[in-house]
Structure formats: structure tokens, C-alpha cells
């Protein structure tokens, strides 16, 4: 039997696409990685919420990794996420900083009074401009920062079990180095 082997080429493509689709299926496209990862944190200076001081990128510049959480009182998922942040803040040697995004100051203070304050410092981003510099688009968003560089970004609320699964492994790994 003589075949035209040219005609078998489509089969290779079909197998290729089959494998491609298979992996796309388990790939979550809705969670986007931030291009800021691995880059230097953009510089910013904003007023503080709970004092008259200033909150700036240099506050996050230490060699020990810290957490920066972008939140607002009007954001319902932030409310859901808050206990997880409290848990994180109560752990040893973990500093959590907050950036209050496009919020009313009084509302923000009420939010903190009501649910507790996990943050070492809270900056106010009234205009949302610092948020844009950080590539924020859907709060809550959480960054892990070390030496002024972004290591990791989490979009959406942090679930309690994600602390163990995602956040802590990164923090521990970085601390050992």
C-alpha cells in the first residue's frame, strides 16, 4: 500500500492542539501575573491614615519580606479577607502594611475600629494614583515585598488556607536566604 505521507501531517497538528488544549484547560487565565514581579517597587509618598506621618515605599525596603495590602472600606471582599490579614499580622516577624484605596477617611477608620487593625502603617491613596503606579485594578490586592522589590502579587481576597499554601512558603523561603 502506498500512502501520501504528506496527508498525515494534519494528524501531528491535531495531537499538538490536543495537548495544548488539555493544558489550557487546567490553566487559570483569570488570574493575571503582574509585570511588576521581580521589579523595583515604584516610589510613592502618601499621608498616613491613623497619624500625621507619611507612608512611603522606603518603609517597605527592608531585607525581611513584608506584606502590602491594598484595601478599602467599600470593598466587600476586603471585609471577607480581613480575618486572614489579622491572622498574618499576629504571626511572628511578619509586618503587614496597608494602602487605603480611593476611600473616605472616616469610613476607613470605622472599618479598622470595627474589624481590628492588622497594619503596621496605613497609607491613604485618595485619588487612586498610587494604585495605578502599583498596577492595581481589582482590590483587594496583596504584594509581598523584599528589599524594595515585588516578589509576589495576589489578586482578590486571601483565603485563610491560602496563608499556609501560598503566602507562608514564600515568606519562609525568603527569610532563609
Amino acid at each position, binding site marked *: 500500500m502506498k500512502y501520501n505521507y504528506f496527508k498525515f501531517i494534519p494528524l501531528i497538528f491535531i495531537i499538538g492542539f490536543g495537548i495544548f488544549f488539555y493544558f489550557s484547560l487546567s490553566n487559570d487565565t483569570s488570574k*493575571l*501575573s*503582574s*509585570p*511588576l514581579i521581580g521589579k523595583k517597587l515604584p516610589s510613592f509618598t502618601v499621608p498616613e491614615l491613623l497619624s500625621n506621618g507619611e507612608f512611603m515605599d522606603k518603609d517597605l525596603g527592608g531585607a525581611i519580606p513584608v506584606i502590602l495590602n491594598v484595601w478599602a472600606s467599600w470593598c466587600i471582599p476586603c471585609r471577607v479577607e480581613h480575618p486572614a490579614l489579622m491572622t498574618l499580622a499576629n504571626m511572628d516577624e511578619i509586618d503587614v502594611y496597608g494602602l487605603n484605596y*480611593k476611600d473616605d477617611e472616616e469610613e476607613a477608620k470605622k472599618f479598622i475600629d470595627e474589624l481590628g487593625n492588622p497594619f503596621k502603617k496605613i497609607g491613604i491613596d485618595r*485619588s*487612586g*494614583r498610587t*494604585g*495605578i*503606579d*502599583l*498596577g492595581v*485594578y*481589582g482590590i483587594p490586592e496583596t504584594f509581598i515585598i523584599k528589599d524594595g522589590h515585588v516578589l509576589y502579587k495576589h489578586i482578590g481576597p486571601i483565603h485563610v488556607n491560602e496563608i499556609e499554601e501560598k503566602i507562608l512558603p514564600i515568606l519562609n523561603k525568603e527569610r532563609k536566604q
Partner: protein
Amino acid sequence: MKKICLIFFLLISTNMSIAEENRAINLFKEVRCLVCQGQTIHESNAEMAEDLKEVIREKIDQGQTDGEIKSFLIEKYGNWIIMTPPFNGLTYLLWFVPLIILLFGIYFILSKKNHKV
């Protein structure tokens, strides 16, 4: 004479702002609204989209070029935010595959016909 100059100046300056507004709108149409998947910020009035529009307007006022504004946005949000894919290592295949298929087709049709004639 001074008056005429002033009018002339005003005319130019308003014209400039129309040109700038057009530039802004063209840019808005190129920037994806990140919270409303599939729309551009031009089509959306979500708060996020309005903020981005404001940033773009400001940057135009500061005299930045379209390219500079785009690369600012890409730097912050990734290639995803620009509606038209750029032409770089990541997208060579995207732009060239159609051309390759077209050329292959031309070869295919011509060669097949020549056999018979």
C-alpha cells in the same frame, strides 16, 4: 494687531486641544478596561476606567507621546492592557503565520495547475 494675534493664538490653542482630545480618545480605544473584560476604557465608565482616562489625559498634557504612555501602562499592567498586540519576539508568530499560510496557498494552487498544463 495685537488683538488679531490674540485671536490667532486662541484659535491655535483650541485647535491643539481638539487634536489632543482626539489623541486621547484614540488612546482610550487602545486601552483595555481591566475590570470589565473585553471592553476598552473608552467604552466603559467603570471607576477604574475613568481613573486611567484621567492619567492618560494628564500625560498628554505633560507632552508625552502615545508610545511613552503605552509603555507606561504596559510596565504597570502588562501587555494585556493594550488592545493591539505589539510587534516583538512574543508575537512574531501571531503576525507572520497568516502570511505564511497565504504564501503556501499561492504555491499550492500554482504548482498543482502547472502539472496539468
